[in-house]
C-alpha cells in the first residue's frame, strides 16, 4: 500500500505534515538538504515543473534558493536561510515564496525506527494570508491567477472596501 501523508492545519497560521519513508534518517535528511537530491523530487514533474536552479549553503545562517519553472508556468523561486541543521534528526529554516512578503519558519524532524523514518514538518507563517498564499502554490495550472484575484475580492468584501 502506498504511504500517505497527513497534512493538518493546526492553527490559522500553521500546518503540520507527517510522512513515513522507507529509508534511514540520514538519507532522508540528505534528500531534504542536498541540491543533487532535491532536484530529483522537490519540483512536481508531472505538472511540467522542474527545478532550474538549486543552491544551498548547508550551515547555520546559510542561504538556499530553489528556482522552479516550466513552459506553462514561467519561473518562480523559494528561498530562505537555515537556522539549525542537526543531521540526521532536525532541520529548522525559513522559507519565502518570492515575490510574496513574509517568511515561514519550517521545522522538520526525522525519527528513525526499524529502518523507516517518520518526518514531521511544522510550517509556521507570519499571518493567515501568508499561509493561504503558500497553500495556493499547490494550485493547478491556470487557477493561480484567478484565485489571486478572487482572494483580493473576497478580502475586500470581508472588509467592506471596494475592490480594485
Amino acid at each position, binding site marked *: 500500500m502506498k504511504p*500517505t501523508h497527513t497534512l493538518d492545519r493546526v492553527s490559522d497560521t500553521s500546518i503540520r505534515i507527517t*510522512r513515513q519513508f522507507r*529509508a534511514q534518517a540520514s538519507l532522508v535528511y540528505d534528500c531534504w538538504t542536498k541540491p543533487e*537530491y532535491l532536484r530529483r523530487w522537490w519540483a512536481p514533474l508531472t505538472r511540467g515543473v522542474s527545478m532550474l536552479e538549486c543552491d544551498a549553503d548547508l550551515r547555520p545562517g546559510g542561504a538556499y534558493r530553489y528556482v522552479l519553472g516550466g513552459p506553462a508556468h514561467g519561473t518562480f523561486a523559494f528561498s530562505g536561510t537555515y537556522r539549525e541543521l542537526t543531521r540526521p534528526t532536525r532541520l529548522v529554516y525559513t522559507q519565502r515564496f518570492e515575490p510574496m512578503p513574509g517568511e515561514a519558519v519550517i521545522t522538520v524532524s526525522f525519527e528513525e525506527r526499524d529502518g523507516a523514518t517518520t518526518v514531521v514538518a511544522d510550517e509556521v507563517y507570519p499571518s493567515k494570508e501568508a499561509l493561504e498564499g503558500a497553500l495556493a502554490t499547490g*494550485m493547478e495550472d491556470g487557477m493561480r491567477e484567478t484565485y489571486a484575484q478572487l482572494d483580493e475580492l473576497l478580502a475586500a468584501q470581508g472588509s467592506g*472596501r*471596494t475592490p480594485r
Partner: protein
Amino acid sequence: MVNTFAALAEPTRLRIFEFLAPRPRSVGEICETLALGQPQVSKHLRVLRDHGVVAVEARAQQRIYSLRPEPLRELHDWLEQYRALVDERFTQLDQVLAELQAAPSPHPPVRRKRRSTP
C-alpha cells in the same frame, strides 16, 4: 468549489462578480457601469445564478443581484490543493530513495524482514 471556480473563470463574469462585491446591483446598473449589453449580462448572470454565486431579488420593476457568501467561503479551502502537491513530491521522493538505496552508494539498502505470506 469546482463549480464556483468554473462560474468565475470567464473574464466578464469575474468583472460582474467584482462589481457586485461591495453591494447588490440592478441589471441596469451592471449594464451601464460595465458597458455591457443586456443580453450578454443576463446570460452571465444566469450562469452565476446556476452556480450559486449570486442571488436575485425583484424590487419594484427591477431585478437586483447580490453575491451569496457560501460558495465564496469554500474557495478558501486550499488545503486540498496543497495536499495534492505535497503528495506528488513525496511520491517522487519515495522513488529517489528507492533508487539511492538500490545503487552502490554510501547509504546501504535498508535491511527488511521477510514478510510472511498470509
